[in-house]
């Protein structure tokens, strides 16, 4: 397997300034620069503007929202009332806690299983290596189908259990292969010398391999966490109890189907609370964790990509 590596460092520079131009390159034209700038700005605006509107509206008072005739683009009167109401116990608070719990537990479980498996497969000469690898790889080519999987989860008695949100989708073979690719590239001399010093496999994994793979582990952790945080379909299939639903499913009810949050209907009808602000606040709660965390791992993203074939 080959993983993406940085190309030769051509123009190393930091900050906003442009690095010096190579002598053979033409000076950029004014029109070219302007054109690129406009396209890039529009692309970024298409992402940022909707999020801005959602965030501003979630923070606006009922009066500001009524004056704007709905969504608010220019912040005026700001308030945290929507968040206060949603986070003071009740449906959305519970759903957020469920999502956080499932995401933390699921990510920990997925990472543990994946890292162990990736390390266990990182030596191409180990016993059964090829068979195990084939068993995992083959799953990338087929899917047993929705109905058989549904019946299996039901048969295992996972219905109405949070395990149904974790176990069936706990590992991604793709992620394991990415981790394995990095583990395989770690200097074998280092591992061998640790072994001569008496370190067992667990110790080598924990004290040598994992510290050297921090970047890729961070990326894969993010991938798993985002997967759990964003999942809603399995919950809609396997959880019948409304009180158990995670945030995404509650967001479907509140934002898409425009239902009033349990217990807040009266406050929305008569009080200071705007129904629209409540909806937007739920959306912000769903987007905030990923929007805050993902930029930290950004420069390592391409390590989470698998390009090329898997070395057997």
């Amino acid at each position, binding site marked *: 397997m080959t993983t993406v590596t940085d190309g030769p460092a051509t123009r190393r520079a930091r900050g906003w300034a442009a690095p010096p131009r190579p002598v053979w390159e033409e000076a950029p034209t004014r029109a070219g620069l302007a054109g690129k700038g406009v396209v890039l700005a529009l*692309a970024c605006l298409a*992402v940022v503007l909707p999020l801005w509107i959602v965030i501003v509206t979630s923070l606006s008072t009922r009066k500001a929202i009524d004056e704007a005739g709905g969504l608010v683009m220019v912040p005026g009167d700001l308030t945290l009332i929507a968040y206060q109401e949603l986070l003071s116990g009740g449906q959305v608070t519970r759903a957020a806690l469920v999502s956080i719990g499932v995401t933390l537990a699921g990510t920990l479980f997925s990472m*543990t299983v994946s890292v*162990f498996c990736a390390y*266990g497969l990182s030596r191409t000469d*180990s016993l059964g290596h090829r068979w195990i690898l084939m068993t995992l790889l083959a799953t990338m080519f087929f899917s047993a189908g929705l109905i058989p999987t*549904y019946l299996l989860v039901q048969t295992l008695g996972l219905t109405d259990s949070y395990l149904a949100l974790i176990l069936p989708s706990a590992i991604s073979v793709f992620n394991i292969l990415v981790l394995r690719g990095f583990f395989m590239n770690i200097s074998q001399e280092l591992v061998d010398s640790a072994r001569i010093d008496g370190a067992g496999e667990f110790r080598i994994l924990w004290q040598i391999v994992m510290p050297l793979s921090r970047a890729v582990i961070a990326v894969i952790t993010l991938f798993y966490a985002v997967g759990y945080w964003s999942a809603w379909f399995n919950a809609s299939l396997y959880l019948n109890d409304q009180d158990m639903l995670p945030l995404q499913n509650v967001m479907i009810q509140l934002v*898409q189907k425009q239902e009033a949050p349990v217990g807040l209907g009266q406050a929305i009808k008569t009080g200071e609370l705007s129904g629209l602000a409540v909806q937007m606040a739920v959306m912000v709660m769903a987007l905030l964790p990923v929007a805050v965390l*993902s930029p930290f791992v950004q420069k390592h993203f391409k390590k989470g990509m698998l390009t090329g074939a898997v070395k057997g």
Partner: protein
Amino acid sequence: MSHSTVPRSETEATKPAGKPAASPDTAGPPDDAPQRAGRGTLSLRLRYRRDRVLLLMTLPAVALVLVFNYLPILGNVVAFQDYDPYISDNGVVSMLNSPMVGLENFRRIVEDSAFWNALKNTLVLFFLQLVLFFPIPILLALLINSVVRPRVRAVAQAVLYLPHFFSWVLVVAVFQQMFGGAGIFSQLLRENGHDGLGVMTNPDTFMFLLTAQSVWKDAGWGIIVFLAALASVSPDLYEAAAMDGAGRWRRMWHVTLPALRPVIALLLVLRVGDALTVGFEQILLQRDAVGPGASEVLDTFVWWNGVRNQDFGYAAAAGLIKGVVSLGLVLAANKVAHLMGEQGVYKK
């Protein structure tokens, strides 16, 4: 550590790429892992003693895959049954007690116009995404790559990657707030005396809406692979081309694009292998708004008939057809990738 006392050979650090030579005295299982010195001399028992911890480490993942990826394959028996989910809460008990009906479910599918409609929608959506989605990450990557100011580049990347991490629920909700009947554009239009927008509920343009949502969510993320390919181009090539008198555009045509070609070919081939799996979550969330006629794809067809209508045998049969055709497509796509000299997902 007794299990690690068996010495590993020195050559294992190097990773030989060649085909293994036949070794008649191999005691291990018939795997043809790259040959290395000393391998043939280790007995199965010694290899087990040396590698048992590694085997143990792979066990949880293998168990999960066997239970949740392989075991359900047996459940496709339901496709040949008149499955009755009310016999028992236990799926297996219901399965064992439901009558076999042979190919009856498949006969019904062939005669069901809803199935053919779902197939049509699936293919339409696949081609729309291929034509309208696929080129965008390439163009964006070329654009970002030409930005030389590092900070501008990092900020643009951070912004463009972001929607990839949003759930489909959030993406659909964002589109609703922008383009829905009560969305910001409808709001602005109404203030100026026009009618609001109806794109979120218009069946005729629904496939374009789905494609637009996919572009918003994942086009930015798609640039990563292309950027990586672009970063691996040696700057000497550009310099040499410039020395030979190639201008900006000639350099892009003769240096940049050839560097991207293998990646484009590979992604294209893999995409085709996945052709029947399009838009599932996205459509489930918006199916009610436009109706099944405009929105149903094969995956949602299975969901609707099985989970909603409790017609499990019928849904499983449709799922099985889709699964088998998809398997064929994936294998064919990888074959094509290999023939083109690319590596595909897996190469022997």
